[in-house]
């Protein structure tokens, strides 16, 4: 336990970058450089925080010197710090791809600044130590995501955005009511104190429902395939990589605080249903984006089951793998749509000849999603299966889900990439500079998925960060020394 301002500094950076982007909104080049260089700087700061937390232990910022059980505080535990690094990396990689695809009009409407608003909310949610502050950070990231969802304003986006906004508003009300009831019952909202008292069933039900909706666990997942496909692919890449993960982490943090253990079972059953619905849902889809959205539902199912069985190390691996692989696959989907002018992957032809690099990116990311070596996904799925070894039903379920993902991905490969055909007309061409940005953004995700696969063998930062997670955020007050 170290008291330092570092977590708050890492949190404030995306807010500062968002403000800079808004301030120079009329000067396109300046915004581009601010968002790119700022993104690199933020990633460096987040990595620094994670390394310091790894070396010295959990770091705490108490805003204004108020005791953290009453005032606002930020706690960077190993898992939270690692998630911030993940968020900064995704933000940068997907941001590069967005730079490649955005037109002048979209950039003029504050796109980059809005993504940093979203990142600000996501980081806050990862670092907060208090149930009500978690609600506030959810709202911050939701507002950012609402605007990004309808950014561009096509009819489809508005319709998809309407569903997304409504569902999230309802879940916010549930979350807020859950907070209020928790405070009424226990007189505290700090995670540490709640871990000692326990949240009773009434508010627990509201909180679990709200988080299951945010994480998109069946039966509360159907908004995702309905709304995500409407937004541009670089926006969905950001959403699918980060937003559901915030819900997952909130579930991991709060489930241990509940008095009744039945909620673990509820989440576990939700996870089983998610794998089934997601797997069978993705097989039937012709629209590539809807297929990937259903696959997200099935992957969240794996995470939910790991949370329900209290395996934080596995949760960390699964979250990192899914964020990288799914973020990358949505970018690949965007490129496939751009090159062929089709949204239905069964109508796409001959992509392997036209863009070998894209083919490789797709193959690696799809392998990681399904859980094939030599990718991080293999280790994530391997760990998942080995912790379920004494539950044959779950092992079979996990293998079936993985097989369904693999089937879907192979189907896409065979039809869109491997089938030769006359060159389809691209819906738009990228300039050389933009193509380069896209390659770097997408390439860094592919490299990360492969490079991290060596880490479970060598030094294992992800699994270690997950394993360091022990329910309540900070140990009890006895061993703490304040400066």
């Amino acid at each position, binding site marked *: 336990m170290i008291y330092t301002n570092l977590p708050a500094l890492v949190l404030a950076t995306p807010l500062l970058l968002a403000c800079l982007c808004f301030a120079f909104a009329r000067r396109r080049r300046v915004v581009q450089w601010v968002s790119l260089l700022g993104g690199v700087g933020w990633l460096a700061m987040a990595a620094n925080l994670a390394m310091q937390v790894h070396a010295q232990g959990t770091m705490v910022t108490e805003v204004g010197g108020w005791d953290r059980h009453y005032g606002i505080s930020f706690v960077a535990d190993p898992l939270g710090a690692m998630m911030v690094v993940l968020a900064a990396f995704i933000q940068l990689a997907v941001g590069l791809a967005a730079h490649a695809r955005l037109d002048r009009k979209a950039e003029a409407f504050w796109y980059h600044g809005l993504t940093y608003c979203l990142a600000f909310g996501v980081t806050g949610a990862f670092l907060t130590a208090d149930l009500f502050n978690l609600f506030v950070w959810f709202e911050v990231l939701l507002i950012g995501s609402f605007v990004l969802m309808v950014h561009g304003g096509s009819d489809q986006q508005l319709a998809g955005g309407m569903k997304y906004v409504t569902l999230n508003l309802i879940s916010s009300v549930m979350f807020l009511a859950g907070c209020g009831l928790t405070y009424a019952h226990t007189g505290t909202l700090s995670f540490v104190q709640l871990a000692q008292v326990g949240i009773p069933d009434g508010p627990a039900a509201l909180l679990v429902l709200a988080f299951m909706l945010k994480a998109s666990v069946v039966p509360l997942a159907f908004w995702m395939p*309905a709304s995500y496909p409407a937004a541009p692919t670089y926006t969905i890449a950001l959403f699918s990589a980060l937003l559901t993960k915030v819900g997952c982490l909130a579930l991991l943090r709060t489930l241990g605080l509940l008095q009744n253990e039945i909620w673990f079972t509820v989440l576990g059953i939700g996870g089983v249903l998610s794998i089934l619905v997601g797997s069978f849902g993705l097989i039937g889809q012709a629209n590539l984006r809807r297929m990937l959205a259903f696959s997200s539902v099935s992957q969240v199912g794996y995470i939910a089951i790991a949370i329900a069985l209290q395996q934080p190390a596995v949760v960390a691996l699964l979250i990192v793998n899914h964020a990288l692989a799914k973020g990358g696959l949505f970018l690949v989907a965007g490129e496939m749509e751009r090159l062929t002018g089709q949204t239905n992957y069964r109508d796409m032809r001959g992509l392997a000849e036209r863009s070998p690099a894209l083919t490789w990116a797709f193959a690696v990311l799809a392998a990681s999603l399904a859980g094939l070596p030599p990718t991080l996904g293999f280790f994530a799925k391997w760990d998942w299966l080995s912790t379920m070894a004494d539950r044959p039903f779950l092992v079979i379920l996990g293998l079936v889900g993985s097989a369904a993902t693999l089937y879907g991905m192979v189907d896409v490969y065979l039809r869109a990439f491997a089938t030769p055909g006359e060159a389809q007309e691209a819906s738009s061409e990228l300039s050389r500079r933009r193509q380069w940005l896209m390659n770097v953004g997408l390439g860094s995700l592919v490299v990360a998925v492969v490079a991290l696969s060596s880490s479970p063998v060598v030094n294992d930062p992800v699994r270690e960060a997950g394993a360091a997670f022990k329910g309540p955020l900070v140990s009890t007050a006895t061993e703490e020394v304040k400066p």
Partner: protein
Amino acid sequence: MDALYAVVVGFLFAIGVYLILQRPLVKLLLGIAVLGNAANLMIFVSSGARRLPPPLIPDGEKVVTTPIADPIAQAQILTAIVIGFGVLAFAVVLVHRVHQTSQIDGFDELTEGVGTE
């Protein structure tokens, strides 16, 4: 008094849910607004809705000895009201825009055109 508040909160939640289940988008908005206020009122009641002095430490003392109003619940409500207001303003504009571009007023009609290409 608390019992009365409890009934009012329950009634507001009921109205909110009823409105959300209606077809027109405007009623959906109203429903969300009512639900938000119901949640705010519930936090207010949860801290004990009594007439108490503000939590100020009198001159020359270290701690408050007399009963005071709970500042944490009040801080929560203020925050929640501001957030709810902002989010609702966004939702109103969104509904207006949906109505403008596609001339629809019912939630069911939204399913047309998304992902069906």
